[in-house]
């Protein structure tokens, strides 16, 4: 039997990246800066948003924020954010195979018709899942944030360098628990910087509000930054 070798040399994620570019064009057209918010489950993404987003539209400069909530099932996180009176769109990722472990460009694309892009300056996409995949599947975002809680171990950055290298901001959350834990937060920060020297690191407690102002300020600076590069 005759067999032919076919040279392919194609990034297997090209198809995803093509859709991510299409998303990006839509975001650019509406002048929306998009943030991909990632973490291990339970690190505190939703709590951080609950804390940080309130009243941003009334600040100077005003920033209108919307959220696209990835959830494996249900709408618990989206419901929690409904008190903020900002656009929140739910995106379920259950694919019948126990749920996806991340959002990909196509899932985000399928949700976009429901997202009122023209009513916002910043769209935050709360990703789902673990610490490897989300960094591999771009969704058309401008910036990636990783939330890392002090209950997770100081070695996380060394175990998941791909993810930490892909993020420009790492939010160390749950610092209110530090006094109860035998956790070396300086070592965590050193490990983050060892893997990604350019990362900005913030220490916050989404529970008590400690450090949240710095995160709010970072979000507020986003639209101006996008304008500068456009």
């Amino acid at each position, binding site marked *: 039997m005759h067999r032919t070798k076919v040279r392919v040399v*194609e990034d*297997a994620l090209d198809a995803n990246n093509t859709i991510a570019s299409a998303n990006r064009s839509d975001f650019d057209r509406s002048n929306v800066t998009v943030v991909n918010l990632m973490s291990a489950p339970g690190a505190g993404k939703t709590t951080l948003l609950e804390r940080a987003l309130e009243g941003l539209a009334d600040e100077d400069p005003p920033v209108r924020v919307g959220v696209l909530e990835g959830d494996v099932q249900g709408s618990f996180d989206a419901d929690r954010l409904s008190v903020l009176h900002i656009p929140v769109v739910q995106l379920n990722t259950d694919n019948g195979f126990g749920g996806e472990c991340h959002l990909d460009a196509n899932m985000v694309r399928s949700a976009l018709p429901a997202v009122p892009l023209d009513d916002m300056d910043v769209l935050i996409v709360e990703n789902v899942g673990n610490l490897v995949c989300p960094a591999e599947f771009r969704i058309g975002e401008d910036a990636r944030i990783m939330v890392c809680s002090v209950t997770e171990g100081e070695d996380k950055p060394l175990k998941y360098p791909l993810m930490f290298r892909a993020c420009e901001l790492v939010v160390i959350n749950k610092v209110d628990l530090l006094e109860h834990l035998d956790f070396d937060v300086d070592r965590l920060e050193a490990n983050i910087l060892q893997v990604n*020297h350019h990362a900005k690191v913030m220490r916050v407690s989404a529970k008590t509000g400690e450090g949240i102002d710095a995160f709010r300020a970072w979000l507020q600076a986003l639209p101006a930054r996008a304008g500068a590069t456009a």
Partner: protein
Amino acid sequence: MHEFDLSSAIVATVNKHADGRKVTHVTLRIGRLRQVVRDTLEFYLAIVGKDTPCEGATLEIIDVPATLVCKNCQNEWEIEIPAFICATCGPGAVEVKTGEEFMVESIEVEDEEDAACTAPR
């Protein structure tokens, strides 16, 4: 457990290039920094590839080491642990040179004419 989704991406890429022909062999080029677990990937490829042109294809993975380059002193070196730091200049100008690849390198397909030859006459 990103191997499941990565498998879907691989199968889609392979089948696109197979263009309807049966695939007998797949060669991937995967960088160390991707942290792909070979056995897990193979396991999911078999599941995702079932009932598609690449069902039953053998798999070969070219393992690409993680190498860094310092843009300051042009030094290049391989890393075994995730330390992105130049011994001379520190971390400021270090970039990944290889190790982030996730490519379908080549595939082997059964020729259509030959496939016809094996059909009963």
